[in-house]
């Protein structure tokens, strides 16, 4: 197996007495679609924040392309080639659709205004938002806002893209489209690391899945292995028998 693009090695993150992550190790193979699942509060977003530099790991190390990034600052990590979307969409709401991507393109690279404008339009074409370029963010529907956030995350030309619950609030048709979009990104040589509650999406899309429960990794494997893993079934069904199982599966 080739060297992993991202290696999380025995990372713990404590908030006071709370152990949000305990001794978690992950290896994300280059070019793969890798999913992180687990019940609410299991530490998934904390893991994303550790990888993108919002939080320093209390112990352990994070290496990206073989380079230590644990505790580095977010903008430095972004420049190394990591992009990210947020669970609660964080767009620049006072800017137009175009400007949301434009500011990211300009922050990421030097170059003339004309070539940067062309790059923005390319990303808006890719996410099917070109026709909305002059619209305000608030006029976009939910799915469009998620796509815009993805376009913005791609502006820095990342090699690893972190998607935090990209399907949250989406209906069936939108989810199918999202799955197509994510596969298209993989075809463009991107590695995708996603957090997702929608089990049909995760099981159909991810090549490998890691499961967090109370900050610990309780399982890792292929979708089939995860679906039949006793500790996973216990974590999901044992805890919130009704709603989470129904919403997830």
């Amino acid at each position, binding site marked *: 197996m080739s060297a992993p693009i991202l290696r999380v090695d025995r990372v713990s993150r404590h908030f006071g007495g709370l152990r949000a992550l305990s001794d978690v190790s992950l290896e994300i193979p280059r070019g793969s679609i890798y999913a992180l699942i687990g019940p609410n509060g299991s530490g998934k977003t904390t893991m994303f924040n550790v990888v*993108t*530099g*919002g939080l320093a790991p209390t112990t352990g190390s994070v290496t990206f392309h073989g380079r230590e990034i644990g505790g580095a*600052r*977010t*903008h430095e990590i*972004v*420049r190394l080639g990591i*992009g*990210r979307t*947020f669970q609660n969409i*964080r*767009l*620049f*709401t*006072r*800017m*137009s659709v175009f*400007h949301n991507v*434009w*500011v*990211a393109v*300009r*922050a*990421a690279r030097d170059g003339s205004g004309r070539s940067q404008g062309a790059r923005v339009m390319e990303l808006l074409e890719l996410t099917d938002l070109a026709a909305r370029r*002059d619209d*305000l963010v608030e006029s976009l529907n939910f799915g469009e806002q998620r796509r815009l956030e993805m376009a*913005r*995350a791609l*502006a*820095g030309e990342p090699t690893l893209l972190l998607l935090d619950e990209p399907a949250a609030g989406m209906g069936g048709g939108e989810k199918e489209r999202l799955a197509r979009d994510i596969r298209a990104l993989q075809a463009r040589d991107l590695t995708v690391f996603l957090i997702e509650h929608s089990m049909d999406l995760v099981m159909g899309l991810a090549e490998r899945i890691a499961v967090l429960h109370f900050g610990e990794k309780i399982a890792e494997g292929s979708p089939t292995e995860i679906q039949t893993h006793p500790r996973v079934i216990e974590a999901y069904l044992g805890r919130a028998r009704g709603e989470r199982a129904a919403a997830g599966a």
Partner: protein
Amino acid sequence: MDYVIAVASIIGIHALLGLSVYVVAICGQMSFGQQGFFALGAYTAGMCTALWGLGFVPALLLGTLVAALFGFVVGFPALRVRGLYLAIATFGFGEIVRLAFLNVRYTRQIGDRVVGPNGAEGFRHVRWVFDGGVTGLQYLGIILLVLAVVAGFFAWLDRSKLGAKFRAVEEDETAAAMVGINVTQVKVLGFTLGGAVAGLSGSLFIHYSTYIDHDMVALPLAIASVTYPILGGLGSFAGPLLGTVLLVSITEGLRALAELREFIYGALIIVMMIFRPRGLIDEALAQRVAGWFRLRRRTEPA
């Protein structure tokens, strides 16, 4: 006529102060301490010409530089607080500067005058401009020239990569960092630029009035400088300019209102916060106007 020149001069000087609040605000920081940088600039520039025998232009530059340096230093602790806490902390900085000048005595006897910062007496006899035979109208020209240069810089900033970074940081620091923006750098730069422009404003002011004391850089000046961009708008550099012209000409133009100034400014801040939180020239209006210009350029025959 002299009265019109006086009001116009105050508008020019205060417009710079409004711009200094604006540049700090568009990277997400509300400062109630710009009068502190104004005072630092004024005292520094005043000492340059009245005590140290420097010319007017070096005095302006030095006043600007010293205030910029203080802006840079204030920028770091300011990173740790936001919102209301930042407003109070920056006002605290302004008060520290004011109280420092209330206590600083650094004077020299020149002829029959005591010149220099003199505690509660203030800093009198900064007469470089007047002794040089510059008329009020000429000095107004200088003020407007400086303002034009600074406004030109801000017009560039609004359209530049740097300006885009500022506004991204203002909207959402986490998202801004996630598109590769160095948030610390942007916010500290905002305070540095804000300090510089407020210092320049103070440098111009002391040579206009020949005099400054601690009382002139207290809370009322803080409120006025914040009201300009809040009324005029945060969507474009034209916002604080518009706000200053409106507010100063109303309060200075109608003498009866001068005594009600604090009341008017306070009421305006509240009204704007409720009905138009981004001011008269907000982002939507600024973008619409920019759109008209683009349209006209596109439809013009080649």
